[in-house]
């Protein structure tokens, strides 16, 4: 039974192909999806998504979003999806530092949403850096 993986961001469709399995960074921890998984909708945390196709495992850094899993399909909705070669290490680091600095200056008790947003940026940058710096 095939498993179809689709990754889309607001800007474009990143990936659409048949894969053997998928590992997702779920909000409550990593999940492995094999074909014929029961139907599931899960929130995703920024992190690393891995899929295996023809015996080759590929990792993609993704932002927060959602995964919709049905028996033969995995749909990923996210605001960021970057492969290893697309990640700009310096840029990610700069973004993270900027967000961290802003996080220090704003009042946490007033603007909870802004805090959450900045934390999301940090988490996203972390996910990118982690993927990039992992020994191959």
């Amino acid at each position, binding site marked *: 039974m095939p498993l179809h993986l689709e990754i889309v961001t*607001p800007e474009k*469709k990143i990936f659409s192909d048949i894969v053997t399995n998928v590992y997702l960074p779920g909000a409550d921890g990593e999940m492995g999806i094999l074909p014929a998984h*029961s*139907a599931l*909708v899960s*929130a995703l945390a920024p992190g690393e998504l891995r899929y295996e196709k023809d015996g080759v495992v590929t990792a993609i850094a993704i932002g927060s979003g*959602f995964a*919709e899993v049905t028996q033969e399909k995995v749909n990923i909705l996210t605001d960021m999806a970057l492969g290893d070669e697309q990640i700009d290490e310096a840029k990610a680091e700069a973004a993270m530092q900027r967000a961290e600095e802003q996080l220090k200056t704003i009042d946490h008790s007033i603007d909870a*949403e802004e805090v959450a947003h900045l934390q999301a940026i940090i988490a996203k940058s972390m996910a990118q850096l982690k993927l990039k710096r992992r020994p191959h």
Partner: protein
Amino acid sequence: MANLRDIRRRIKSVKSTAQITRAMQLVAAAKMKKAQDQAVAGRDYANQLNQVLVNLKSNVEEESHPLLQARSGGKELMLVVSTDKGLCGALNTNLFKKVRSESGTETHYVTVGRKLRAILSKLGKEMLADFEVKDPVPFAEARPISKFLTKQFLEGGYDKISIAFNNFITVMNQEPTVIQLLPISSEQLGEKQEFEGVGNHVDETDKNAALGKDYSFEPSPMEVLDTLLPLYINFQVYQTLVEARASEHSARMVAMKAATDNAKKFIKELTLEYNKARQAAITSELLEITTAMKAME
């Protein structure tokens, strides 16, 4: 009979005007292509988002989330998306007409785009905020707007939030449209939207198939809803901005093409007049010479 030099001067000035409008037409065409591509690119995402929402809807109580609750009051906040620059035909005027016919007495405004902001503030309407959006529209710029609107809905005492924008239908046709953003009505979720970007995706069969499935939710339906709804609102705002941009550029392209064509026609007429005047001058000169010759004989 107009002076030869005057006509020549006018031809020159019309020509340079035509050159400018032609350049603007080409620029607008290129930008329109980009904006259109952007609107199309967002469709996959919209499609998926809607499907997840449809699935979710059958799993939670509709009244359970504040963003889904309909309220009875008449206080309305309208986001008006107009253009920053003019020279785009009747686009802003038409939108303004629509805004006026759709607004109630208790409607306040938030604007994107300079043109209608100027008109609305001149009329003394209550304006809450104004946002500037770059071109092409970056996704990140929709966030502060949707955040502001959501906050006004939850805490600002507004009972309804709507968006007025020019819906891009074809290059020749843009329709001023008003949609309701908040509260998210249950019919609206997963339904076909009347505007193109978020439209034409969940077909009936898909919807039924989705509803038939028993989804489990991680971490919980409410938590998923909590993060999904802001995303949905964000995306709606983004999509209307993109649609409005596509409308603006296509309207400008059409207006500038008409201007260029008119200028060309005008040049033709003026050239004809110029030639006539020139011929008349030659004729009268010849006449003078022959008369002089006759007199010498």
